[in-house]
C-alpha cells in the first residue's frame, strides 16, 4: 500500500489564544454534502405551477437572424410561452460592465451558441426539446475565431494598454544576450460541477425573487432589474451555495438569472432554468487564451536587463470582464521578478466566439506564464538551471529599496520568496533530483524526465479599488445563538466556514453556536463579487466588525452590572467572564435583551492603503501579495507524448491560516485545476465556430488518477505584514499558478529529447500532441499536417 502521508496541519499558524480561528475544521456544510442533503438551487422544491425555460441557440458564428419561427416554437408540446429580444420590457442587455454589447436575446449573432430566444414549458425536458426544434434563418457573415484571426484582421475589442518603465528597447539592444520568442497559452473551461441555474419566483406588486447560483448576487439584481425595466429594490437574489464557481458564475450567471426572471414576469409563474452541460459550456465564457510574444536582453548570469511583452488575448465578442482581466495580466507579467527596463503591450482582441470572462487568477496566470516562459528560454540559451535564473531575477529584499518596485509603481514590501524557495528546494531535494534526472535521461532514449521549481507572487485586492468593500449583518438572538449574513457567496471555498470561525471567536462561542444565512441582496446590499480571492479578507472583516460592536455593547452591559471596566470582560468557552464570576453567554444575552440592549449590528469594511490610476496604470492596486512555490517532477513518453506527474512539493504562504484544512484544500485544488489547464484541458472549435469540446466526454479535466501520488503541501510560516483578518492571506487564486512547475517540468523533459541548441516551443496545454509537436520540431522533423 502506497498511500501518501496524511497532512499534518501546522497548529502554530495563529496565536494559541484563539479558540476557533486557526484550527483545521471541516467545511461547515460537509455533513450535508456527504449525505446529499445540502440544497443547491436545482434541488429546491418546486412551487406549484413552476415552468421550465430553455434557450434557442445560434448555429452560426457571425451573422444576423433573418427569422425565428416563433409560432412553430409555441406549437411544440408543453410550450407555454416564447420570448425574443422584442419582448423584453426593459433593456435587452446583460453586460456586467454596462457596455451595451451583450444582448440577452441576440438578433445579430456574434458567436456560435449565442442565445436568440427562450421557450418556457411545463417541464425541463419539454422546454429543451422545443428549443432544439427551433427554426431559425440567418444571413451568415465570415467569422474571426482565433486570436490569430483577430490579429490578422486588426480586430480589437478594447483599446490597447501599454505600461513601460525605462527604455526597454535600448536595454535589450545593449544586453550581452538577446532572445525573442512566442508561445500560445490556451483557454480553460470552468467546469463547475453544478451548471448555471436560476429559479425566479414572481412576487406581489412588481417584484421578483431569484434563487441563483451566482458569485455576484448584486450584479444579478441589477441586471434582472434592468431587463425588467425595474429598480434594484424590486429584485431579490438569494444564493445559499454554488456547486463550484471559479469565476464562471461571476458575470456568467446573467443568462439564467435574466431569462428565468423575464419568463417569470411574462407568464406570472415561477420559472426554473438550468443549462444542460453542453449548452452551459457553449454559451458561457472561459479563461482568455493568449498569444504571448516577447523580446528580452539579459546578462551572462541570466539577469534580465530589458524586456518587451506583447500579450494578445482572445476576448470573444463582448467586453464582459476582459478589461480588468487583461489589466491583471499586465500586473502579473513580472511575477516574482524585478524588471528594470520593461515595456508591456496588452492587446484585447475581438473574435466571434463566446465572451471570455473571469476564471480563478483573472489574467494573472497568463501574465505569470509569460515571464516564466521567458525565464525558461533564458536558462535554455545559457545552459543554466532555470532555478538559478529565477533566483537571480527575484525582487529584492523588502527591507531595502533596491529592485523592489513593480512596473506599475508599487513597492513590494512583503517579499518572502527567497527564503521560501530556499526552504522548498531543500525540502524537496531539488538539486540532487535534478542531477539524478539528467543521469536518467542520458540512459533512456524513450522516456524523459524533467523537474521544475516555479514561484508565484500574486496581488490581492480587486484592481478596481471601489470593489474592495464589504458588508455584513450579525444577529444575536436572545437565546444566545448567532446568525451571520454577509455579502460573500459560498462556492465550496469555505468562506462561510471561515466567517463562522471568525464570529464564533469574537463571542467566545463554539463554532456550532454561529449559523450562516444564505447570501441575499435583501440582507446585505451593494456587495462585490465573491472574487479576486477576497471573500474572507473583505467579508470576514465586515462580519468581525459587526460582532465586535455587539460584543462591546454586551461587555459594557456586563461591566455596568458589576461596576467594573468593560475592557476587563472576556468572552470564552461559551461564557462571559466578569469581575471573577462567569455566566453562560446565553444568560447574559437574555439579560441584555430584557434591558433593551441592541443585539444585532451591521458591519462594514474597506481595504485601506490601495489606490491606482487606471489611466497611467500606476499606484498601489494591491493591499499585499501572496507567495508560494512548487517543485514538480514529471516523465514524458516521446513516442506518444503521454505524461505522468511523479512528485509535487508545494510551500505556500497563506499568512496566519484561519483554517489550515481549508487553505490546504484551496492549494491542492487550485494546483490540480491549474495543472489541468496546462496539460489535458483543450478547447477545440470547429471551422464554423462551434465549440466541439463542450462536455466532459471531450473536455478533459483532471481525474483522480491525475492527482500526484506524492503530493506534499505545506504552509509557509508567515504572517501578513498588513492588518488583514487575523493576519491571514487570501488563498483562492494564487495556488492556480503553482502547477506551472508541472508545465515547465514537461518542457524540461521535452528539452532532454532534442539537441541542446535546437529551438523549443511548447504551447499550452501540453497535451500529448503538443509535446510530440514540440519534440518533432526540435528534432528538425516537424509533424506535417495534411493539406
Amino acid at each position, binding site marked *: 500500500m*502506497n*498511500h501518501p502521508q*496524511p497532512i499534518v496541519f501546522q497548529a502554530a499558524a495563529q496565536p494559541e489564544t484563539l479558540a476557533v480561528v486557526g484550527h483545521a475544521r*471541516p*467545511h461547515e456544510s460537509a*455533513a450535508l*454534502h*456527504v*449525505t*446529499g*442533503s445540502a*440544497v*443547491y438551487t*436545482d434541488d429546491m*422544491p418546486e412551487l406549484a405551477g413552476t415552468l421550465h425555460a430553455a434557450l434557442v441557440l445560434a448555429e452560426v458564428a457571425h451573422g444576423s437572424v433573418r427569422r425565428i419561427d416563433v409560432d412553430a416554437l409555441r406549437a411544440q408540446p408543453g410550450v407555454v410561452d416564447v420570448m425574443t429580444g422584442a419582448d423584453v420590457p426593459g433593456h435587452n442587455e446583460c453586460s456586467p460592465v454596462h457596455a451595451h454589447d451583450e444582448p440577452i436575446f441576440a438578433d445579430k449573432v456574434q458567436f456560435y451558441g449565442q442565445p436568440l430566444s427562450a421557450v418556457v414549458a411545463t*417541464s*425541463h425536458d419539454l422546454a429543451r426539446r422545443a428549443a432544439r426544434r427551433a427554426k431559425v434563418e440567418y444571413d451568415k457573415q465570415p467569422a474571426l475565431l482565433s486570436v490569430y484571426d483577430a490579429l490578422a484582421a486588426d480586430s480589437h475589442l478594447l483599446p490597447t494598454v501599454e505600461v513601460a518603465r525605462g527604455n526597454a528597447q535600448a536595454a535589450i539592444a545593449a544586453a550581452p544576450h538577446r532572445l525573442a520568442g512566442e508561445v500560445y497559452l490556451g483557454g480553460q473551461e470552468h*467546469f463547475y*460541477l453544478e451548471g448555471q441555474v436560476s429559479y425566479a419566483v414572481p412576487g406581489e406588486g412588481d417584484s421578483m425573487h431569484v434563487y441563483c447560483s451566482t458569485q455576484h448576487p448584486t450584479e444579478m439584481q441589477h441586471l434582472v432589474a434592468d431587463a425588467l425595466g425595474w429598480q434594484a429594490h424590486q429584485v431579490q437574489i438569494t444564493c445559499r*451555495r454554488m456547486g463550484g464557481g471559479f469565476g464562471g458564475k461571476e458575470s456568467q450567471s446573467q443568462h439564467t438569472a435574466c431569462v428565468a426572471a423575464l419568463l417569470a414576469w411574462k407568464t406570472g409563474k415561477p420559472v426554473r432554468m438550468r443549462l*444542460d*452541460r453542453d449548452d452551459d459550456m457553449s454559451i458561457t465564457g472561459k479563461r482568455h487564451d493568449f498569444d504571448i510574444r516577447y523580446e528580452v536582453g539579459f546578462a551572462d548570469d541570466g539577469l534580465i536587463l530589458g524586456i518587451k511583452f506583447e500579450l494578445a488575448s482572445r476576448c470573444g465578442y463582448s467586453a464582459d470582464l476582459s478589461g480588468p482581466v487583461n489589466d491583471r495580466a499586465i500586473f502579473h507579467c513580472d511575477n516574482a521578478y524585478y524588471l528594470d527596463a520593461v515595456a508591456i503591450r496588452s492587446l484585447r482582441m475581438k473574435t466571434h466566439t463566446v465572451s471570455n470572462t473571469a476564471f480563478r487568477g483573472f489574467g494573472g496566470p497568463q501574465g505569470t506564464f509569460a515571464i516564466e516562459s521567458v525565464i525558461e528560454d533564458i536558462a535554455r540559451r545559457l545552459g543554466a538551471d532555470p532555478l538559478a535564473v529565477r533566483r537571480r531575477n527575484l525582487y529584492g529584499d523588502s527591507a531595502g529599496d533596491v529592485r523592489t518596485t513593480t512596473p506599475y509603481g508599487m513597492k513590494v514590501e512583503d517579499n518572502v520568496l527567497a527564503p521560501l524557495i530556499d526552504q522548498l528546494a531543500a525540502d524537496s531535494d531539488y538539486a540532487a533530483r535534478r542531477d539524478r534526472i539528467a543521469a536518467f535521461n542520458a*540512459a533512456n*532514449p*524513450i*522516456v524523459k524526465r524533467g523537474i521544475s521549481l516555479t514561484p508565484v507572487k500574486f496581488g490581492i485586492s480587486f484592481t478596481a479599488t471601489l470593489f474592495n468593500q464589504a458588508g455584513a449583518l450579525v444577529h444575536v438572538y436572545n437565546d444566545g445563538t448567532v446568525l451571520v449574513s454577509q455579502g460573500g457567496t459560498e*462556492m*465550496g*471555498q469555505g468562506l462561510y466556514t471561515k466567517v463562522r470561525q471568525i464570529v464564533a471567536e469574537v463571542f467566545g462561542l463554539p463554532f456550532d453556536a454561529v449559523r450562516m444565512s444564505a447570501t441575499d441582496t435583501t440582507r446585505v446590499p451593494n456587495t462585490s463579487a465573491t472574487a479576486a480571492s477576497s471573500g474572507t479578507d473583505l467579508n470576514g472583516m465586515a462580519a468581525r466588525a459587526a460582532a465586535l460592536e455587539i460584543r462591546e455593547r454586551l461587555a459594557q452591559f456586563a461591566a455596568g452590572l458589576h461596576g467594573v471596566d468593560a475592557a476587563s470582560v472576556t468572552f470564552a468557552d461559551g461564557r462571559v467572564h466578569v469581575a471573577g464570576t462567569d455566566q453562560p453567554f446565553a444568560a447574559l444575552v437574555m439579560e441584555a435583551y430584557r434591558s433593551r440592549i441592541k443585539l444585532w449590528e451591521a458591519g462594514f469594511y474597506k481595504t485601506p492603503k490601495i489606490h491606482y490610476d487606471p489611466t497611467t496604470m500606476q499606484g498601489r492596486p494591491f493591499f499585499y501579495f501572496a507567495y508560494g512555490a512548487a517543485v514538480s*517532477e514529471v*516523465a514524458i*513518453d516521446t*513516442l*506518444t*507524448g*503521454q505524461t*505522468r506527474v*511523479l*512528485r509535487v512539493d508545494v510551500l505556500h504562504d497563506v499568512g496566519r491560516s484561519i483554517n489550515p484544512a481549508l487553505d490546504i*484544500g484551496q492549494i*491542492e*485544488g487550485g494546483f*490540480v*485545476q491549474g495543472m489541468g489547464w496546462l496539460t489535458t484541458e*483543450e478547447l*477545440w472549435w470547429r471551422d464554423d465556430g462551434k465549440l466541439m469540446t463542450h*462536455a466532459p466526454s471531450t473536455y*478533459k479535466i*483532471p*481525474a*483522480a*488518477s*491525475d*492527482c500526484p*501520488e506524492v503530493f506534499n503541501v505545506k504552509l509557509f510560516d508567515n504572517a501578513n505584514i498588513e492588518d488583514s483578518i487575523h493576519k491571514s492571506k487570501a488563498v483562492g487564486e494564487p495556488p492556480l499558478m503553482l502547477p506551472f512547475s508541472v508545465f515547465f517540468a514537461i518542457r524540461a523533459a521535452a528539452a532532454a529529447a532534442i539537441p541542446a541548441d535546437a529551438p523549443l516551443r511548447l504551447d499550452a496545454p501540453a*497535451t*500529448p500532441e503538443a509535446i*510530440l509537436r514540440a519534440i*518533432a520540431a526540435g528534432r528538425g522533423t516537424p509533424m506535417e499536417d*495534411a493539406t
Partner: protein
Amino acid sequence: MNPTTPAEPVARPIQFYFRGGVRHVAGVSPTRTVLQYLREDLHQCGTKEGCAEGDCGACTVVVGELVDDALQLRAMNACIQFLPTLDGKALFTVEDLAGQGPTNLHPVQQAMVDCHGSQCGFCTPGFVMSLWAMYENATSCPPRQEVADVLSGNLCRCTGYRPIFDAARAAYQQPRVEMDRAAVIDALRNMRAAPALAYESHGQRFWAPRDLDTLGRLRAEHPQATLLAGSTDVGLWVTKQLRELPDILYTGAVDALRHIHIDDDWLDIGAAASLTDAFAVMTSEEPMWAELARRFASPPVRNAGTLGGNVANGSPIGDSMPGLIALGARVVLQREAVRRDMPLEDFYLAYRRTALQEGEFVAAVRIPRRPRDDARLFRIWKVSKRADQDIAAVCGAFALTVRGGIVEDARIAFGGMAATPCRALRAERALEGLPWSQVAVRNAQAALAEDFAPLSDMRASAAYRRTVAANLLERLWLSTQGGDAVLRVEELADA
C-alpha cells in the same frame, strides 16, 4: 444457470427494491432516466446531474442484483440508465447511507468529512456512492491504484482528489458497517417470480425478455425497436440528442446473453455481459487487456455497458475492437433462432454501419483462446489526452506470431485511424514471412502510412494520429528487445 423456458413478457409495472421495499412504477416514460425519476418525480435530490452523459459521476448510484444468489453491488450512472432497466434490481442512493453507522454518518461519509473530501459538495454524493460500492465489495482498503480506478468516473473540480484518496482509506479505519443484505436478497428473489417485463407508457414500449428465443422473436417482430443493452450510448441519444425512442428491446434481462462460456478453443462472451465481467475473463486469459480494461471509460460505465454493445455500436474509437480484431475475435449474429458469425473486422462496413441485417442482433463475441506455445506476442496501447476515462485518439493492437525469429503471422488493428476499427493490412504484409527486425518495423511503419488516412478532430490531428500509430510499432519493436531503458511512463516508480 437453468435455461429459461421461453416466456412472453407480460404487461406490468416496473418493480425494483428501493428505500427498504419493493416499488412499483407505472405511467412513466420508459426512456425516463433513473436520475430524472429520482430528482423530478420523487424529489430525492441527493443525486446530482453534472453532465447527463455518464462522464462526471455526480449522479452515481449503486445498483444491486442477484448473481448466483448473492447480492452484487455496482456503481452506475443514474443519468443515462432508463428506469425500466432497474426492473428486478435494487437501487441505492446517497440518501440510503446515513443512519447506518454508529453516528448518523456511514463510515464512508464520516471519512469524507474528516478528511475534508468535499468543498463545493456537488460531486460529493457521487463520490460517496462510488466509495460505498467499493467499501461493500472489499473488506479492506484496496491499493491506491485501485482506489483511483474506483473513482475514475467521478470528477471533482475543487479538491484535487488527495483528500478523497485519504477518505477512502480512513473509511476502513472506522468500525466496519455493512449493509444488511438479507432483506434485499429476499426482495430480489421474490421479484424473480414476476414474469418478464413488458411495459408501455407515453406511447412507448419496452420489452425485457429473459430468454433468447423470445428476444429473437421480438426482434424479428419489431425490427424498428431500439436494441438496448447497457444504455451507456443509447442513453445519450435521449439525454443529448433528445431522440424519441418509441420501442425498446432490452437485452439485459436475457440470462443466456449475460453468460460467459469458456471452452478449449474460445471465450464466448454473451452480448449482454457487462464490460466489467467480460474484461475480468479476458484479462485472466490475456493479461495485456488489464490496462485497457482499467482505462476503458469508468467503473459505472463498465458496470452498465456491455462488450456486445461496444462491438455492435461500431464506433471508430471503441476501445475493445482493436484488441479483439488483432486476436481474431468473431462476432455472432442471430436472427430468430438462426446464428451466423464472421470475423469482427468484416462486421464493420463503413462509419457506424455494420453487417447487422434487419431483425438481427449481436448475440456474442467469441475470442480465440491464447495459443499454448508462447510464440504469440500481444499488445494493446491506448493513447489519449487524459490517462483515465478518456476516449482514445489512437488505439493500436498487435498480435504477432514469431517463430525462429520469423514473423509467421501478424494481425494489427487500430482505432481512431479510420471510419471504423480496422486492420492495418499493408503493415501486416510488410512484416509477415520476414525476420522480426528493425528493418521490418521500418517497412511496416512506411506501409502504415498507406493503410490509413485519419481525420483531425478535437481529440487529435491527423498528423499526430499518423505519427503515434507509427510510434506504437516502434514501441512494439522496442518492447521485444529487452534492455534496461524505460519504455513507458507507467513503468516508473514515484520520484
